[in-house]
């Protein structure tokens, strides 16, 4: 779960990491209020959960009340990488002497956290790394012993931080580790961490990403869960315990198991079709989960065909059929529904569905081909 910059900064502040003064606004009136507190110069930053805000015009300097109003309205009108900007952060403008990049990430391949640091902080960190992989200093962290002070010093040394700032730097990076560990973060990032006015270290940006699997033990973080950012269908699916990812096609898919679901999407793509979503109902799904999943697909106006692919194992195909029927019996189906049932109790399930007008197919390849034909209208 990614957390917006302004919320990440609230967490930073709780851990004693210095951030610029500022507050969040949803319109120019509030922005102007904040400007009056922070003037003469403020930075206005789009709050969206994507990178590349700066290059998209989502981060701008304002030097007067007029500029604040103008820029606020400009930014609130932006859509960055598909995400409409609904909130902005208005912050005091900070003088920048030098920019660094600092992050603690979960290195899944190593199975260890890692500390990353670079002297090429700021918007161009990715370019810098692409040109020169040694532009980022990376250090594995022992997950039991935690981040050690000497490791922080080695990072300070690697990024050539002025020595009089080493102690402040250590405080910030050790606080970042504490934040990472205590909140089950997947990653925490400061880009840029700046030197301002010669001797102050300030986190100008803040990115916190929490491990989805660990959110249950951080109920205090759920307030940061940004429903407005979330797709309505994804939110609904999450509520029912389904794993749903919105894609940009027109074939609605429901599958049991993540691997099989991906395989189904791959087959659709191979045939020239476009899946509208990834939807995994999980192992051992009961009929309610199945009907909830089906309802989500049916609500999706983009969907032209529904493809249901179940390989029964723990999941029983008769239970799946029961869930489907509970929807079909109460709603007129206007869309073609292609279904493939195999494995545990498949015969029973198909028998239950035989009068429901579904297009029954025998294998996964056939299911994909027919779904694509129906969606493109190339054949009936």
């Amino acid at each position, binding site marked *: 779960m990614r957390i917006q910059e302004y919320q990440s900064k609230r967490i930073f502040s709780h851990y004693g990491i210095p951030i610029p003064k500022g507050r969040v606004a949803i319109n120019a009136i509030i922005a102007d209020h904040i400007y009056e507190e922070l003037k003469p110069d403020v930075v206005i930053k789009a709050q969206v959960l994507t990178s590349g805000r700066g290059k998209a015009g989502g981060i701008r300097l304002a030097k007067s009340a007029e500029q604040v109003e103008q820029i606020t309205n400009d930014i609130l009108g932006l859509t960055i990488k598909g995400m409409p900007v609904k909130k902005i952060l208005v912050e005091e403008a900070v003088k920048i002497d030098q920019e660094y990049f600092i992050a603690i990430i979960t290195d899944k*391949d190593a*199975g260890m956290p890692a500390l990353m640091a670079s002297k090429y902080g700021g918007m161009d960190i990715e370019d810098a790394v692409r040109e020169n992989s040694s532009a980022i200093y990376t250090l594995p962290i022992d997950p039991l012993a935690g981040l050690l002070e000497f490791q922080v010093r080695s990072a300070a040394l690697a990024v050539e931080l002025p020595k009089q700032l080493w102690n402040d730097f250590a405080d910030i990076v050790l606080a970042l580790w504490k934040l990472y560990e205590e909140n089950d973060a997947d990653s925490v990032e400061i880009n840029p961490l700046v030197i301002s006015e010669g001797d102050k270290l300030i986190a100008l940006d803040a990115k916190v990403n929490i491990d*989805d699997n660990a959110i249950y033990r951080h109920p205090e973080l759920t307030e940061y869960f940004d429903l407005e950012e979330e797709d309505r269908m994804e939110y609904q699916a999450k509520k029912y315990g389904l794993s749903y990812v919105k894609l940009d096609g027109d074939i609605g898919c429901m599958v049991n198991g993540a*691997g099989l*679901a991906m395989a189904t999407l791959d087959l659709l793509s191979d045939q020239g079709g476009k899946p509208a979503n990834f939807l995994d109902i999980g192992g051992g799904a009961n009929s309610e989960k199945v009907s909830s999943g089906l309802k989500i697909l049916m609500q999706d106006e983009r969907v032209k065909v529904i493809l249901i692919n179940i390989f029964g194992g723990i999941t029983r195909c008769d239970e799946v059929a029961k869930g489907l029927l509970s929807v079909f019996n109460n709603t007129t189906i206007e869309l073609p529904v292609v279904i493939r049932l*195999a*494995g545990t109790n498949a015969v029973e399930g198909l028998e239950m569905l035989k009068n429901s007008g579904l297009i029954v197919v025998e294998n996964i390849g056939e299911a994909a081909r027919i779904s694509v034909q129906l969606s493109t209208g190339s054949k009936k």
Partner: protein
Amino acid sequence: MSILVRSDISVLVQGITGKEGHFHAQKMISYGTRIVAGVTPGKGGDWVMDGKIPVFDSVKTAIEATGAEASVIFVPADHAADAIYEAVEAQLRYVFCVTEGIPMQDMMRIKRYMQTSETQLIGPNSPGLLSPGKIKLGIIPGEVAKPGNIGVISRSGTLTYEIVNELSKAGAGISTCIGIGGDPILGTGYPELLELFEADPETEKILIIGEIGGRFEENAVRYISQHNTKPVYAYIVGKSAPEGRRMGHAGAIIEKRAGSAAYKNELIKNAGIRLASSIEEIPALLLKS
């Protein structure tokens, strides 16, 4: 014999009184697996499976009473890490963790903690192991596979059942099928199992069913190039997945180019490993060569 475990190994089930644990323990017993004990803290002294299997409060007491050497874990995610620690500390030889959704930091700590341990952890989020006709540990449906000479290593559950089932229909059987798990941080990766299949007299061909995300398959390819003489086949699912979105499994997310199906497929092809570019091609590919 199965790879990894003896067919007659004594097994305990952690979380046997839960819905899933109970259901699958029953299935394992029906398949012939020697389930000798269950563990559910607070339920020690109970008996399950028509009074045939004793339940213990701790792994240690279960081992003392039954001599179990392996465990299958069905404990819910919020207590699964503790269940793994308990199994490791009790020095079980093999631990199969079926549970999905263990927090990553817990898994990192467990892996570090296990650095000096003799226990082999498979998973988490693993469907387990199936050696058709011999032993079943975990949740792979026994019906999908028949005995044969293909060794299967996979990161998925149902996708594996689907493929193994298609192989069966096409006349190809399985020596052992094992799921390493769909999580980003796993106890056991491909190389250790590739080594066992290479040494296994019952395995003639090895099939890898990979996914997007992580460098697991990259490690597999490196190992195969250096060590495997038996023919290896591979299929990577998720080539149509978008970047940065988690496709169900916590491990199935493309964070870097190295995690994409295109990159993995390229590595596989360059290493001379036979690649199925679609799930439908798999049976023919394995049978023709």
